């Protein structure tokens, strides 16, 4: 579908909802503020529903579905690393100890970000697959060093997806 009038409308709605909601936050202590916050939230939800409804109109993307749980585990491990560091501030007193705990926390976060998450996203990466949605999309990589041209050819030959 690419960019469309519907997208523009729902984006406009999103902005209006956001501004109204922020007006509500600014005056949250008053009744009018609470009302504005509620109205803004409703408009924001409406815009998101709109976006969700027009999402299927998009053409097929080359990205294949990958394990959802693993992605959230990766983000969770990253967050856990931060919590370990914060815990170190409470439990450990000396500078050396706090540095060590912070390094452990950073290591844990890096494991989540650089270890778990790329593995989750690349598990079913479209460039690995010779079949399925990627082929339909005409974007499958050939064995070895495929080129952009080959993919263009595949795309043209198979009829580019809607």
């Amino acid at each position, binding site marked *: 579908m690419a960019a469309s009038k519907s997208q523009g409308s729902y984006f406009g709605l999103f902005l209006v909802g956001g501004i109204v909601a922020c007006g509500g936050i600014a005056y949250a202590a008053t009744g009018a503020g609470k009302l504005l916050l509620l109205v803004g939230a409703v408009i924001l939800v409406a815009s998101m529903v709109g976006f969700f409804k027009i999402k299927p109109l998009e053409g097929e993307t080359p990205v294949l579905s990958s394990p959802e749980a693993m992605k959230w585990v990766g983000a969770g491990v*990253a967050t856990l690393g931060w919590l370990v560091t914060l815990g170190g501030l409470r439990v450990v007193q000396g500078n050396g100890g706090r540095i060590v705990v912070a390094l452990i926390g950073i290591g844990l976060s890096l494991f989540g970000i650089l270890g778990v998450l790329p593995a989750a996203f690349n598990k079913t990466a479209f460039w690995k697959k010779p079949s399925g949605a990627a082929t339909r999309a005409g974007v499958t990589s050939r064995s070895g060093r495929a080129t952009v041209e080959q993919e263009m050819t595949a795309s043209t030959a198979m009829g580019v997806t809607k």
Partner: protein
Amino acid sequence: MKARRRSHVLAFCIAAATVAVAGMALAQTPAPPAQPASAPPAPVPPATAELREAASKAPAAADLAKGDPGGTVIGNVADVTVTDAKAGITLGDAGNQIGQNKIAINFVWTLVCGFLVMFMQAGFAMVESGLTRVKNANHTYMMNFFVYGCGLLAYWVLGFAIQMGGAAGNGNLGGLNPLNAEHTVSLLGKTWGIFGETGYFLAGTSYDVGVMVIFLFQMVFMDTALTIVTGACAERWKFVTFSLTSVIMGALTYPLFANWAWGGGWLSQLGTNVGLGKGYADFAGSGVVHSVGGLTALAVCLIVGPRIGKYNRDGTSNPIVGHDISAVLIGCFILAFGWFGFNPGSTLGASSNGNLRIGAIAVATMLAGCTGTFGAILYMWISKGKPDASMSGNGLLAGLVAITAPSGFVSAPSAAIIGFVAGILVCVSVSFIENVLKVDDPVGAISVHGTNGLWGVLSVGFFADGTSNYGGSWNGVTGSVTGLFYGDASQLAAQLVGISTLLGFVFSLSFAINMVLEHVVGHRVSAETELNGLDIPEMGQLGYPEFVFRPEIAYSKAA
């Protein structure tokens, strides 16, 4: 008879009203103090007398009318604003003028530096667009253009209040007293700032000249962070999802971390609350701006996936070269120019409170950019055989990113070392992200801003030399920021807590927000759109309509 009675009544009424008004006036007017019969005039203090004498010798209008080609006539005591022209100049007038001058110098300094930072948007646009293919030029330029508006709107409405709502107390800008509400929590027996609560829409008490100055300066910093993401996700990112991400980032993700570091939040309180150095120290934003942008770029890049044709089935990557290396290198120079606003401007003033260090900060910035370029060029030349132009540009930017946090605290040799390490680091990081993580970052933004932003934050903990003195304290802790190499290990601990927060909180929050957007809106354009170029489907117009596109086959072979 009747007429006489009416005139009596009228006369009585007038007399009564006169008595009443006179009574009220007497009741409200204090009795004049009894004056001595012949009070001598109050003695004029010697300093005031001296001022008045100088004023009497000031050039007359006739002298001024002759012109002042040497600039030696105007700009004297006669230019001081006096409160009582009849009485003449007083010491109070002179003091007021000095105060006005200090604030004026700091306002002008901060504003002009903010204008320089704003111009960096043009540099980012050129770098990012130059490194992408011509079929996506309009789309990439438009992302860089529109991110300014998205960020500004979101920051004005909400972001600024979250970041700076509790940042009162900056003497350079007159105190910023209206920004006096920080939401706090109590933990470990201490109070920790979480987010600001005043300044929404810059309305109400935020309608203040100092607040306006700090808003402008902080806004352009925020926009720099946002525009980092557009480069990393170029050539396959839906324009509408980019717009949504930018608004949310400008309103929430960036301001939250910026509050913790710069707005009186808990990271800045690590020194006062738990004795970690001077608290998290990030002078101009290696962490706040560049790491936040770089880590958000990584989060979105993971979700959006690599460009079609970037990776082969065996996992090897193909180079997809950009369309305009001249735009890239000119863009880098524009960014380096803007960085002179970024780092020296972060003193938020040029007058008093140790702000004369701006010269040292500017030189540190310049040197780190230089050595960053050398680091990247030498690395590429020695390891790949060619002094690669795009990596040279990235080396310059990496050095600048890395020196951003320590620029206010380190010596010139340290700045050179930090920049050189950054130049090598960016090359290693680009290769790691592309070949090991299989994350496609067309412009190297994750490495330039994310990796080197973290390096910059860390380097404060090592290289800060304890010579800076911004009003005698930093983050409310007396003394200067001092790193491990100069004897303070606790500052390194504070920096590590900051890095952990960037990785564990900022990345995770950005990832979660963009995962939700992925499910609701979708980040990626269709394969058809991507292959044909995003200019027509997403923007409705080619960036270069008169260009004849080479077929991808020739393009690919040339690469």
